């Protein structure tokens, strides 16, 4: 709770301060949690945004605004993001510009985590790579976001959300429903190995 407060007050401050920035207008608000370069902040449970596909970003922002994502009581961080999205974005916001800007940010290096990489690789390639790409680079053809460079904690949390029915249940979230289906096929004991493998991808 204190973190949420902190984040919200920081956001409010920066918005109120009316700092003139080169990025699209709403980005500074995002940067408060997701970082100036979209590098995310594990301490705030804010995922990496830099380098994510614009289509994915737009879709997710709209989902947050429309209550498609971040509506589940078991997903406090999602709820938080939904609240912000609803307050910061409106129909006039140029989401295209915002998403394009974020996509253009360089993907930060992520601290690799330990695991059985051979097993992780195997499960990844057999189950995930078909949509997310062999190196976790994502594939817009399947609405599959980039995984490489993402914080391992975030990946794990989202994966479990999909598996537990917290994310990817809304009828409007077709890509999410697909992922929810896939999340049920991966044995949970291999999850850490798969995430370790992803964390090793450049």
């Amino acid at each position, binding site marked *: 709770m204190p973190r949420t407060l902190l984040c919200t007050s920081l956001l409010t401050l920066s918005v109120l301060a009316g700092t003139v920035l080169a990025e699209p207008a709403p980005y500074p608000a995002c940067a408060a949690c997701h970082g100036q370069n979209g590098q995310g902040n594990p301490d705030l449970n804010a995922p990496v945004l830099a380098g994510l596909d614009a289509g994915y970003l737009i879709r997710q922002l709209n989902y947050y605004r429309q209550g498609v994502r971040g509506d589940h009581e078991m997903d406090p961080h999602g709820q938080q993001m939904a609240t912000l999205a609803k307050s910061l974005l409106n129909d006039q916001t140029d989401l295209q510009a915002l998403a394009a800007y974020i996509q253009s940010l360089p993907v930060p290096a992520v601290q690799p985590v330990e695991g059985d990489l*051979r*097993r992780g*690789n*195997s499960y990844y*390639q*057999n189950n995930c790579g078909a949509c997310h790409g062999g190196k976790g680079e994502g594939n817009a053809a399947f609405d599959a976001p980039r995984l490489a460079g993402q914080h391992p904690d975030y990946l794990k949390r989202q994966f479990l959300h999909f598996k537990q029915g917290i994310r990817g249940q809304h009828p409007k979230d077709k890509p999410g429903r697909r992922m929810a289906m896939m999340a049920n096929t991966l044995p949970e004991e291999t999850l850490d190995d798969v995430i370790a493998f992803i964390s090793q991808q450049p």
Partner: protein
Amino acid sequence: MKFLLRLLILSIVMPVEAAGQEFVLKDSCPPSFELRDSGCYLVSRYQFYDSLQNRGVGGTQTGLPEYRDGFSPQQIDLGRYLFFDPILSRDGSLSCASCHQPDKGFSDGQARSIGIDGQVTRRGAPSLWNVAFLKRLFWDARADSLEEQALGPLFAPDEMANTPLQLMQAMESSEHYPALFAQAYPQTAEPLSLENLTHALAAFQSSLVSLNSRYDRYALGHHQALSEEEIAGMNVYRSFVARCAECHTPPLFTNQQVAVIGSPEPEGLPLDVGAEKTFNAAKLKGGFKVPSLRNIVRTAPYMHSGRFDSLREAVEFYTKGRGHAVPDGVQMQIHWHIWEPQLTEQEIDDIVTFLDALTDESLMPSIPGRLPSGLAAVHDNSNNKHNPPREHSDE
């Protein structure tokens, strides 16, 4: 090419079983097989077609002959390990795959196969694709089942040169095989037996099915699957001038008969009497089982002792005159379809072009990354077993 690609993918993607880890046999059937009552049963569109007298020979839309299936997934998988494992040979230098290499149409690229201590055997290794459909095995048709066939190379002094006693001792003292046989033959009193070993090899070989070539797509009604040149070749092939289809009859591209065609031995080798010996019949002197032509482009050189390096030379043989290569003084009852068809050079080319359309390796099995015996795979390096085995592995 496709196969190479697959190997590449497999080698990148698949894990190798970690050393010391227990082996667990697969509980699912190979592709194109359906699991029913714990047996794997082939599913093919050809099963919906008839064939005269159920012989499995005919034209484009013709049913298959009787075949072997219904093996359990575990038996097939055990057979796969055995097939690639040199523990089956006397000195651990040869596996089944030494002479039946997956990337060479389950043949070996040799005119005559090379057995233990570099001994050159009498005949070439036949392809194993579609052996599930064959009633008789070996070039001279001397075995009636895959199980019976397996005993041949295992114990032939110039092939794997093992003895039943030594083989079973090696299996029993291996770390993993007793448990694997118990997995594959759970209801039997003595799972680890020679009988079950040959049965498992038969199970694996029966999964090597190739019925999804571009030719098959044509045959099943998609006439765009073949090019104009290939169709021209197909029409020469099945014409009553070339008469290829009279013995290499679809859908398997063999009629499974013994035929005396009088093809020559390699220079300097004596005549191989072939099926004369099997059937004790002088009229079958020089007779051999008609081989299937599926995946034929993979299995050069050609004929029973590999006299012809290329497919074109093999096709050309049939145009050179009835009995032209029969040694002087030898009486041979040359098959009636061997005549002088006077094919043009273009027609010979067209037949060769068509034969390429019989290629389908989509049900290629995966190669074990680690063998239950703990030995290294030898099949890719039969002439140099000190090379490290290629890294393959399983799903």
